[in-house]
């Protein structure tokens, strides 16, 4: 079977500073892949390269067996890392989510009844329908995150790229967002790339885990990859891995009793 995302020898640099070096990954249809690594390790850069927002210095990315182009982008949904959205922009939640459908409508076409129904379904699905009339600037962090997930889903993507969708949320909201993504993944057979710092919250759902720090340190099934040696190397610190009931759990070195 051909991978939906194929990354071959990918190197990305910002002005001469290398952010990703010689990354090779194959992601297959329906996989739920977690991408982990310390701050500045290139996680966001990897997602942006997959979307073609940054062009590779070397290597190649192929999506759906073809090049990274506008047609491929229309088959993907993206939830960017927080902070890149202008929250003062005068737009209501419903219309902001509708924008996710714009690229699929023809020129001169305005949202049709079926577009509106889709927006309604997706907003209900992420439990944000009650927010539809609110200006985007008046949402809480967790509410906003649901709205951006809805915008990414409303185009019926085949690949969903999520950049730290739970960062800054309380424990319960984090759980709700992860369950939501898990349900969508299961229900629609979506391929998901999920960037996070909180591996324990999602590892039970993940098919694969990638540990990044400029290069790809490890990539494979969570049980094979979440190992104390790997983590100590990637995070360069006292990380422990303990065996949970069904899977390994990552704990940070004991700071309290040194």
């Amino acid at each position: 079977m051909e991978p939906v995302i194929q990354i071959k020898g990918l190197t990305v640099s910002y002005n001469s500073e290398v952010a990703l070096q010689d990354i090779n990954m194959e992601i297959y249809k329906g996989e739920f892949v977690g991408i982990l690594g310390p701050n500045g390790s290139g996680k966001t850069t990897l997602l942006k390269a997959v979307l073609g927002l940054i062009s590779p210095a070397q290597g190649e990315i192929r999506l759906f067996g073809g090049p990274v182009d506008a047609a491929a982008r229309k088959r993907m949904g993206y939830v960017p890392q927080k902070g890149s959205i202008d929250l003062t922009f005068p737009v209501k939640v419903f219309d902001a989510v509708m924008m996710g459908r714009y690229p699929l409508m023809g020129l001169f076409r305005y949202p049709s009844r079926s577009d509106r129904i889709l927006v309604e379904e997706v907003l209900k699905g992420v439990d944000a329908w009650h927010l539809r009339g609110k200006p985007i600037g008046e949402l809480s962090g967790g509410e906003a995150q649901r709205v951006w997930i809805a915008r990414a889903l409303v185009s019926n993507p085949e690949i969903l790229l999520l950049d730290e969708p739970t960062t800054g949320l309380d424990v319960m909201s984090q759980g709700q967002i992860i369950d939501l993504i898990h349900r969508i993944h299961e229900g629609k057979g979506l391929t998901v790339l999920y960037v996070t710092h909180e591996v324990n919250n999602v590892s039970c759902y993940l098919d694969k885990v990638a540990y990044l720090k400029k290069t790809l340190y490890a990539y494979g099934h969570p049980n094979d990859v979440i190992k104390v040696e790997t983590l100590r190397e990637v995070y360069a610190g006292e990380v422990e891995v303990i065996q949970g009931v069904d899977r390994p759990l990552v704990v940070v070195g004991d700071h309290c009793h040194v």
Partner: protein
Amino acid sequence: MSEIFQYDFMRHALMAAVLVGGVCSIIGVYVVLKGLSFIGDGVAHASFGGVVLGFLLGINPLITSVLFAFIMVGLVSIFTGKGKMKTDPAIGVFFSFMMALAILFIGLMRSYNAELYSYLFGSIISVTATDLLIMLALGIIVLGTVAVFFKELLYVTFDPEMALASGIRAGHFNFLILALLGLTIVISIKSVGMILVLALIVIPASCAHQLTRNIKTMFILSPLFGITASIGGLCLSYYFDLPSGATIVIILTFIFFLTALKRVKG
């Protein structure tokens, strides 16, 4: 009030007021939300350079000013493309260059040209039938383009990175917004003048932004303010013999203060 429109020049002026007020305030919504005031000012100065060149060469100044507006937009886009240079200094560099060209051309003219004055400070009653025809054609191009690409322009204005990520050619549309801004300035430069044209673009949309957090409402309120102020300014300037461009801008600023009192939070 209708008796003032028995003269041809006043009828032309009225049509110019509606056209300029409408087109400026629609494009102004993008300018305000995207923060394009400075490039707008740069383009206004560049178009003035084009106007002077038109007089120097003896061709219709609106044609040369379109050319100069596009050169300005093109230069800034080339030098800021792919993050090569920050937008602000790039505009600063070419803004001054274009103004220097204008001054150079004025120097080359060697004779005083009173008509240049109206392009500098605006004189809506000196708009001729030919001017009006060119303005109308350009106005239809601008508003037509906005209508055709409304969704794309909106998405690119709101969130250019997401627009690109979801398959919209954001670079093209960013350039298109600047090109439309250039045409808008050319349409307006004779009526309100190079110095004041930015006000007619920025103030109506800013008034609308005070009153609503809904972009669609902004596209209705902004032209409402822009056209009302243009017609009002025209009438006042006729009755009291005032400079039309300045009168329009002062009315707009009053509207701005009024809307600020009713501002929505957020």
